[in-house]
């Protein structure tokens, strides 16, 4: 098997050959699955009807297989995938409906470039049967299943019926289309609350709501049908029993056009927010070999029932007693496919291309291993402190993937300087780590997250790091309700215990001292050092500092002294400092390079990777520690004393103004000046990245003024409504 480091999409990994890739494998491989592809000719040129990381991912494999690639892009989207591909065609303006979903333009691009096959990636046209049909009509191969399977599985109602017939366990519910909100209420009452309302054509958590009572059903119906209409152009909804506290476990299947179907083990995707996956892993800690086999076999039965070919995923909900229910089948490559690739050693994209060309599967079911453990974290440009993640936009002013670490794979479609905008999914990358055991993979994930440098957009690394180190997650005690259960008050960042707090304070103080020393480093040309720059060297001999560090509302007294008198400038200042914090002693050693965003320190003998986000003359320092950002202010003792005379800054009263929590478009404004709103009443709805977010009042008040209108684009922090 192979750990697919070579598939990482950053540019410097591009030239990895297959053999090179394999040198990263820490264990001997048990079989060779793709030694044959070089002799089996597939396509000369493939068009990838997608963008971002998945387009890059597909191009990667095409390059390995010697296939020419064509990228399509909108006019604002010239990211990495465009640069990686051999050819690129612009298919329209920024909105996806006019570019990546624009079938006419994409058909033109195919004609123009002479591509023989199309890989649709995920999302967009990947499960669009009309697109597959149009391709077939012009003799271009769709790298995916037949239109029949797409149609059968794409419709949640039909798929459930087929699954039932194929003897796959299914969830009790209503197997028809719900027409009106009142219909929905009636059906919900019949099934019994809680119920799940979801778009028939849906996927990816869009157009999905849970309702616990009649009123929520009505509201859910309204939102879901709106979202479904805007995301899929199809507002049909269905309702089923909502299984409380389930796990989300899915089986990857691979089927060729000759009736051979394999199951490639499971992926555990229970960590979700708003029904969107955040952390995935393979295998699952929860499944025993028997359950796994039964689930795998049922997945194969379903695939066979629809004469499935290509890679597909059968999603199950698994309750605490290991009863599992069929949820849906995704007839495409999944976002989280890398974890399966890691533990099985298969390149799923390569398999899809081979299958599309008509080749038979080369593996037998008994050839499919579970080697080690793989974990994937979805790194998003979003603010995890707002309902576990509201989209944020911006320009990646600094961006470094942690690729220097071993056993790390990063699938991304962006680079330093890229823009994350409101038009597309805010995913930055998929960070995958691998280990012989789960503990090893988790430890590597922790390291990788600490070493990941992202500047310019707010990102969810604080949340990811908390999840993967949380005792419940580590022990495997998870469900799809993990986030709301663990953080009932919402995510608040890492909570520092006494030792960690001391470490943070010591690091910040040491950073301050280092930069003070650095400020004295005014150089002269050889001869005129003293004459022209006239620097007195006296303060450089300072060995002790008395500081005061402010963290939150608290002030901490700190004494620092140099331990050992040797410090050298190389790439930075090598300095070891003894720090006395609140009576405790901390030793901080480091190679202090103030130009680097990463701050590798040894604190009391333990290696810690901190990041410095900003350091101002005023003593304010922002450090990333344990994944979370902490604002501290380091002042000398004297300065701190004098600072206590400074007046406090009065902050704005936020209860009477409503600002947009994210960039997006105003789709509905429910109030007008003079209206009285109740606490919790909806004021307006903002759509961002295809998600509708209802903004509510936090107190009862009269509306003073309204500053935006439906259809208007607003930025994060823009004033929407003022209350009295």
């Amino acid at each position, binding site marked *: 098997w192979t750990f697919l480091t070579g598939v990482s999409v950053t540019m410097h990994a591009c030239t990895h050959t297959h053999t090179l890739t394999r040198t990263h494998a820490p264990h001997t491989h048990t079989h060779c699955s793709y030694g044959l592809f070089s002799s089996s000719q597939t396509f000369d040129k493939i068009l990838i009807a997608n963008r971002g990381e998945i387009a890059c991912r597909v191009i990667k494999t095409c390059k390995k297989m010697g296939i020419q690639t064509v990228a399509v892009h909108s006019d604002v989207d010239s990211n990495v995938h465009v640069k990686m591909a051999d050819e690129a065609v612009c298919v329209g303006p920024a909105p996806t409906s006019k570019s990546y979903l624009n079938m006419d333009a994409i058909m033109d691009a195919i004609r123009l470039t002479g591509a023989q096959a199309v890989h649709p990636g995920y999302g967009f046209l990947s499960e669009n049967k009309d697109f597959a049909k149009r391709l077939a009509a012009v003799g271009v191969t769709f790298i995916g299943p037949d239109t029949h399977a797409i149609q059968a599985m794409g419709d949640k109602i039909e798929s459930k019926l087929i699954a039932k017939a194929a003897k796959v366990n299914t969830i009790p519910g209503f197997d028809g289309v719900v027409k009106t909100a009142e219909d929905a209420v009636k059906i919900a009452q019949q099934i019994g609350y809680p119920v799940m309302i979801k778009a028939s054509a849906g996927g990816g958590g869009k157009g999905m709501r849970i309702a616990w009572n009649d009123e929520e059903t009505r509201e859910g119906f309204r939102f879901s049908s709106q979202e479904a209409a805007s995301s899929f152009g199809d507002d049909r909804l269905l309702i089923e029993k909502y299984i409380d506290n389930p796990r989300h476990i899915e089986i990857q299947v691979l089927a060729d056009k000759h009736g051979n179907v394999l199951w490639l083990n499971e992926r555990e995707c229970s960590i979700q927010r708003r029904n969107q996956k955040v952390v995935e892993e393979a295998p699952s800690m929860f499944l025993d070999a028997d359950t796994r086999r039964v689930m795998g076999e049922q997945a194969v039965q379903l695939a066979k029932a629809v004469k499935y070919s290509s890679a597909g995923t059968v999603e199950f909900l698994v309750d605490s007693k290991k009863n599992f229910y069929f949820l849906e089948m995704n007839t495409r490559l999944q976002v989280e496919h890398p974890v399966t690739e890691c533990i099985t050693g298969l390149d799923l994209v390569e398999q899809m291309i081979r299958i599309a060309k008509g080749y038979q599967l080369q593996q037998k079911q008994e050839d499919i291993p579970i080697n080690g453990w793989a974990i994937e974290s979805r790194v998003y440009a979003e603010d995890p402190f707002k309902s576990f993640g509201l989209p944020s936009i911006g*320009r990646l002013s600094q961006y470094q993937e942690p690729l220097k670490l071993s056993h790390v794979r990063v699938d991304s479609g962006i680079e330093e300087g890229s823009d994350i905008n409101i038009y597309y999914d805010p995913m930055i990358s998929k960070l995958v780590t691998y280990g012989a055991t789960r503990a090893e993979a988790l430890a590597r994930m922790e390291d990788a997250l600490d070493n990941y440098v992202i500047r310019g957009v707010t990102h969810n690394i604080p949340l990811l790091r908390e999840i993967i180190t949380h005792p419940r997650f580590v022990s495997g005690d998870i469900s799809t309700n993990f986030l709301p259960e663990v953080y009932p008050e919402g995510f608040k960042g890492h909570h520092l215990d006494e030792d960690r707090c001391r470490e943070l304070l010591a690091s910040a103080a040491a950073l301050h001292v280092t930069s003070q020393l650095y400020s004295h480093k005014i150089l002269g040309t050889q001869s005129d050092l003293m004459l022209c720059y006239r620097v007195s*060297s006296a*303060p450089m001999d300072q060995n002790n500092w008395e500081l005061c560090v402010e963290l939150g509302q608290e002030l901490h007294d700190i004494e620092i002294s140099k331990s050992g008198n040797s410090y050298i*400038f190389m790439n930075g200042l090598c300095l070891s400092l003894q720090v006395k914090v609140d009576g405790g002693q901390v030793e901080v050693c480091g190679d202090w390079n103030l*130009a680097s965003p990463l701050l590798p320190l040894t604190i009391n003998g333990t290696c810690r990777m901190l990041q410095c986000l900003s350091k101002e003359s*005023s003593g304010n320092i922002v450090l990333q520690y344990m994944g979370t950002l902490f604002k501290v202010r380091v002042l000398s003792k004297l300065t701190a004393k*004098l600072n206590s005379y400074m007046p406090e800054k009065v902050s704005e009263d936020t209860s009477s103004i409503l600002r947009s929590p994210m960039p997006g478009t105003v789709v509905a404004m429910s109030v007008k000046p003079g209206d009285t709103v109740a606490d919790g009443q909806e004021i307006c709805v903002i759509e961002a990245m295809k998600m509708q977010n209802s903004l509510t009042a936090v107190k009862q008040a009269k509306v003073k003024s309204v500053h935006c209108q439906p259809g208007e684009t607003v930025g994060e922090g823009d004033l929407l409504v003022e209350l009295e």
Partner: protein
Amino acid sequence: PFCALTRPLSAIACLLQTNIQSDCRWYSVSHLSVKERIEKKRKAAQMGGGQKRIDAQHQRGKLTARERVELLLDPESFVETDMFVEHRCSDFGMEQDANKFPGDSVVTGRGRINGRLVYVFSQDFTVFGGSLSGAHAQKICKIMDQALTVGAPVIGLNDSGGARIQEGVESLAGYADIFLVHPSDLPHHGSLCILTHLMLCLQDTSYLFITGPDVVKSVTNEDVTQEELGGAKTHTAVSGVAHRAFENDVEALLYLRDFFNFLPLSNQDPAPIRECQDPSDRLVKSLDTVVPFESTKAYDMLDIIHAVLDEGDFFEIMPTYAKNIVVGFARMNGRTVGIVGNQPKVASGCLDINSSVKGARFVRFCDAFNIPIITFVDVPGFLPGTAQEYGGIIRHGAKLLFAFAEATVPKITIITRKAYGGAYDVMSSKHLRGDMNYAWPTAEVAVMGAKGAVQIIFRGKENQAEAEAEYVEKFANPFPAAVRGFVDDIIEPATTRKRICRDLEVLASKKQVNPWKKHANIPL
């Protein structure tokens, strides 16, 4: 060697005192009395206007003169002068002992900031509201004269109600003295004084005006508050009098310490070089995508500036005034540089009266203090309109042109996108003796935008779209300038930092002398 503070000194004096007392009690009475008086005066000087007034100062959220000095300078580096000076006024009861304060209403001396020499005066609001007496003015002039002879800067921390009214004309003479020192130190030993070169002020507590709100009301019948008339916001955003505002004393002084490190000690010293940990050959990949495809779309010039500089450390001057031009200090491979950049995010980055004056003043500052200038150009032209023409845009725009042309420090220019018309000339172009002028592949050096140009050339004719495409093809790229040698090279944006650092190394020995004249005649 001169680092002994007043406090340790007095401690020694105390020791001496007790020894002498026990040993030679009988004849040293008068001697002891002098010691005692010295001690007493020193103590009194430390207390300024007394504990009550110090507390009042603190309650206003302000620090005392001495606290400010202590915060500004390296620990234990302050050497005070004229602690015993007292005012000489004898009118209105001022001669009484209770109205005499050792040191009067200003603290003066020298010290070090990050090891570098600086002279400092700090007005003491606790003594007669920091008002300026003859003695006060004399103290300031003394350190200024000294700073002049050794070539060191002066930092003034002003907190004063104005002239001391009891003294009448003497205090006004003091003002004249101070202002006489100031201009004379500019061309020669260039001291840095907040009053003359850079002015920093504080939000909510700094007020600066020629006449206060009451006088304004009685003369022009305008209703205006202190803050509106001469507050920090007014002077940093509207009038352009102040260069930067800070939240409070502590913040301002901490920033001032860091800022000081950018500047040479005098106009005869080279700009300082600090040890640099940021690799000079660092490729800045993000610059390759910073300029948007559509030439009408804005981007933030600060993204470019921050990405290119050492550690992204940029001390912006006048950040809230004439925001269509960005100016400030930074380092490249450790060398201090002045940055000038058009800001496409604000008014498309066009030049208008305010931005021209802001830029010109900054360029001249850099030239006066041997600081190389790096200019980032994305300018669509001068702002049209009657307001600008009546305001004298021709005269003010010429200031910026004059400043760049006159500057003899190393000048490096990078055209990131638009460089149209006269504004292109003004922005440190090759024609103004730019040393190294670069264009990014996105650069468009032309007389004006394609659309406007075609409308003039083909007025009233059809096929304008075609002509526009032709114009774009011909001029909306760096080639027309490059083939004529108006830019020295077309460079990949990612290599910008590397190129600048390398050029600065070479240009460090640049020597250029302007023809002799009594002084240049900038179009004021």
